[in-house]
């Protein structure tokens, strides 16, 4: 090959790199591993994590240990979906493009909003991206955000807002839900958008309609972050006057993956279509009049519009979105309702069961659907460590990111957590609280004891 190129050595091909900039030796990295060694090395690292296969996991806070149907993996692992680039050549990308179109349809159905994009990175950055749309749509730069919105979303919004030159104002909660009064006081004619979340970070179902009305009153948009998996039972944002709905897609058939990759979704009313961020697939026809799908409205995008683009996103989360639409097809119209009902009932059961435990009381009594918050009368980190010794991850310590809830514990349910599991949690929590003395030596590393499985 060197002959064909007309050089003597591979080094000649790098001759244009000034010698002062050339790396003198090798990179200071370990030598390569064979496949079997590499597998063992990574399996070794993985073995030092307490995962939801070994632990009974009641942690939620935005991502949930739902069952990922085997066919989701089977389909997303097909080379034809796994390895192509973004569909720049639609004639050989009809698979991916149609999936995007189906995804958009499914998200639009769930949220009852007419237009959806084909995915963004994940939840919190989708919230921030909605702010960019709102600023563009209203030419205002004030962002009002409920403290019911996930702290990661609020922090991300603040980070982005510095770039947008926007101000972020927070509104507190009352009885677990966004304070309507405080919201009314906080919005004004400079307000671009009001950001709310439902179920909110404490698990409470918000009254989106009421909140959206306040925003509309001052000409601001309402951006709702929603958990799509609850929309089989909860009133969808599109029926509540919400302008833009966004959310984290992980609950829809995504792996936990220690936080990513998952996908964000982004949908809204018709009038925002041309300001939407990200890829959007559209239906069209080919030269012979055959139905086909293309990337629509590319003039919004960075590769065409550059500095005037509606967003900078390029690589997004197509494969995860595929997983999402396969999951929704698997769950189906009946399943999405049944699952929502199952979650609501198990959550109600667990909430009552835990409230009966000595040292536990509800943090709020607003309606909940899949997650709820309690106060624990003992240092929460210590209680969690003790319960972990029994192979249970009891929930998410609210104090970790919200100092106002130092004694708060957020407990999430999925269809994988049975009544028996809930009873085990309640019992373990009771034991842990009564044993807690603030002196638990809590840094024993590694995996908690493997959950005992019972072959029923």
């Amino acid at each position: 090959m060197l002959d064909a190129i007309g050089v003597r050595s591979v080094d000649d091909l790098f001759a244009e790199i000034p010698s002062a900039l050339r790396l003198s030796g090798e990179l200071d990295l370990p030598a390569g591993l064979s496949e079997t060694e590499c597998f063992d090395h990574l399996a070794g690292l993985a073995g030092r994590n307490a995962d939801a296969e070994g632990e009974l996991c009641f942690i939620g806070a935005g991502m949930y240990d739902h069952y990922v149907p085997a066919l989701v993996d089977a389909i997303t692992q097909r080379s034809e979906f796994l390895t192509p680039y973004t569909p720049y050549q639609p004639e050989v990308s009809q698979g991916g493009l149609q999936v995007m179109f189906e995804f958009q349809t499914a998200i639009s159905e769930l949220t009852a909003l007419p237009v959806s994009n084909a995915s963004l990175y994940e939840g919190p950055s989708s919230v921030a991206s909605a702010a960019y749309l709102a600023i563009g749509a209203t030419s205002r730069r004030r962002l009002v955000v409920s403290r019911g919105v996930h702290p990661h979303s609020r922090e991300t919004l603040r980070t982005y807002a510095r770039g947008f030159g926007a101000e972020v104002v927070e509104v507190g909660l009352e009885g677990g839900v966004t304070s309507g009064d405080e919201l009314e006081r906080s919005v004004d004619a400079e307000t671009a958008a009001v950001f709310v979340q439902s179920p909110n970070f404490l698990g409470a179902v918000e009254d989106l309609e009421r909140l959206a009305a306040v925003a509309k009153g001052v000409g601001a948009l309402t951006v709702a972050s929603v958990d799509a998996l609850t929309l089989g039972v909860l009133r969808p944002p599109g029926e509540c006057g919400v302008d833009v709905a966004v959310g984290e897609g992980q609950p829809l058939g995504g792996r936990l993956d220690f936080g990513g990759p998952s996908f964000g979704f982004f949908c809204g009313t018709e009038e925002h279509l041309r300001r939407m961020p990200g890829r959007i697939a559209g239906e069209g026809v080919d030269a012979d009049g055959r139905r086909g799908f293309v990337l629509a409205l590319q003039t919004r995008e960075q590769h065409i519009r550059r500095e005037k683009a509606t967003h900078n996103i390029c690589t997004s989360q197509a494969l995860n979105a595929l997983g999402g639409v396969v999951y929704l097809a698997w769950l189906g119209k009946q399943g999405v309702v049944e699952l929502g009902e199952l979650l609501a009932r198990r959550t109600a059961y667990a909430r009552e069961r835990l409230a009966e435990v000595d040292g536990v009381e509800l943090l709020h009594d607003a309606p909940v659907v899949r997650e709820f918050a309690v106060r624990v009368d003992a240092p929460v980190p210590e209680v969690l460590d003790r319960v972990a010794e029994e192979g249970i991850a009891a929930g998410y310590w609210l104090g970790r990111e919200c100092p106002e809830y130092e004694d708060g514990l957020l407990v999430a349910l999925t269809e994988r957590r049975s009544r028996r599991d809930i009873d085990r949690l309640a019992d373990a929590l009771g034991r842990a609280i009564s044993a807690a003395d603030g002196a638990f030596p809590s840094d024993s590393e590694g995996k908690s004891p493997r959950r005992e499985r019972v072959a029923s």
Partner: protein
Amino acid sequence: MSEAPAPAPPTAADTPTPQQRERATTIFERSVAGRRAGTLPPLDVPERPLDELIPRRLLRESPPELPEVSEPEIVRHYNRLSRRNFDLDTGPYPLGSCTMKHNPRLNERVAALPGHARLHPAQDPKRAQGALELMWRLERALAEICGLEHVSLQPSAGSHGELAGLLLTRAYHEDRGERRTRVLTPDTAHGTNPASVTMAGYEVVKVATDERGGVDLDDLRSKVDVDVACLMLTNPNTLGVFDERIAEITQLVHDAGGTLYYDGANLNAIMGRTRPGDMGFDIVHVNLHKSFSQPHGGGGPGAGPIAVSDRIEPFLPVPRVVRREGADGAGPRFDFEHARPKSIGRLRGFAGNFGVFVRSYAYIASLGSDGLAEASETAVLNANYLLARLRRGRAGRFLPLAFDRLCMHEFVLSGAAAKRELGVRTLDVAKRLLDYGFHPPTIYFPLLVEEALMFEPTETETREGLDALAAAIEEILAEAERDPEILRNAPYTTPVRRLDEAAASRRPVVRQPL
């Protein structure tokens, strides 16, 4: 595959393939009331009426119209759809700037281990030591490869990394009491660069390219001043050209107080040969889905970690991964650190696309230092070999190299001559390549090259594959000489024929009416 030209694909005269005859049907159109795939555990708690738990006002009235289909139908539907995609595991995919290298299957296996795939991101770090150590190790490896000591894995893709880098620049300058308003990008820059500049609240100023394909130094000098926050570059740039005067360029911007941002999309050219940090860059993003073998997934997921210099470090996003030596002889302990007062804050939820980190870490561990260097060498060798093949014959005449020199891992041809002399556009050549079983190169980018074709074969393509690609292009140009209509109406054998993207955007149908 051999040197011989591929046999001629059919032309407009031919009839549709079976796939073409089958009308595209969506999963919603396959729905039949009452069918289902998924099963749920039975209710094992009291069956309370839902509106006793949640006020009726907050409940949905009629269920969303999700598809009603059985598992076998879902499998068939998506398997058939998958075969309407061209993919990297089918044939050469020389899409420039995208680094379509092979995705080792081991990486998928280790990513799927329950210790990774079912690890909750809010798990207590002391019970996720393996995950934190993996992240820490990946950070160290990227720091070494980039020549910049501090790494945050958090950004979700390249463009997210760019935004992070610009917000870091802003924080850095503000911390020094400066307010700068402009960011320089060369006219060869990828579209995400200027788009990120705007999102970060800066104004874009374009820098020209000189006759050798590098930064036009005079133009740069005329634009660098105290209002300039940053120069964003990639080197080799999107023309596949290494800018030898990079040290001079970085010096110029640094002297004016600006930061240097390196778009790492082209890192695959230089691993183990030279490092952005050594060239003088302050901030680099790395596309794990390019150089580090994360599959592209038809448009993601990826990850865009950033590596930065000491002066930028205080501003890195939180949480950061920290390693603490163990007390009394115990092993090291890993943790997330949130309390970083100067940090720009979070860019997303949790700590990044961990599943991508697993794959890329496995890739780096598999290749090791020598393997990475060899990957870059072979990538550059393959690009130059393909280029040499395309300098000959009809390609050399109708699709000449835009900037005539050796290339790095990719190169850009211009289809201006083909358009003028043969009456076929770059688009036509690309569409005809589909009939020959190849994915076309990136086309019409970079913008400054007329009718651009940008080829990046990567190190995992074989010589036979490159020969076959060159032969196909030669054959296609011969067809164009004979009858340009053959190209203008291509493709013929794909599941659908040429699609009208503009029309589909005029009256967009972006969801299925149900």
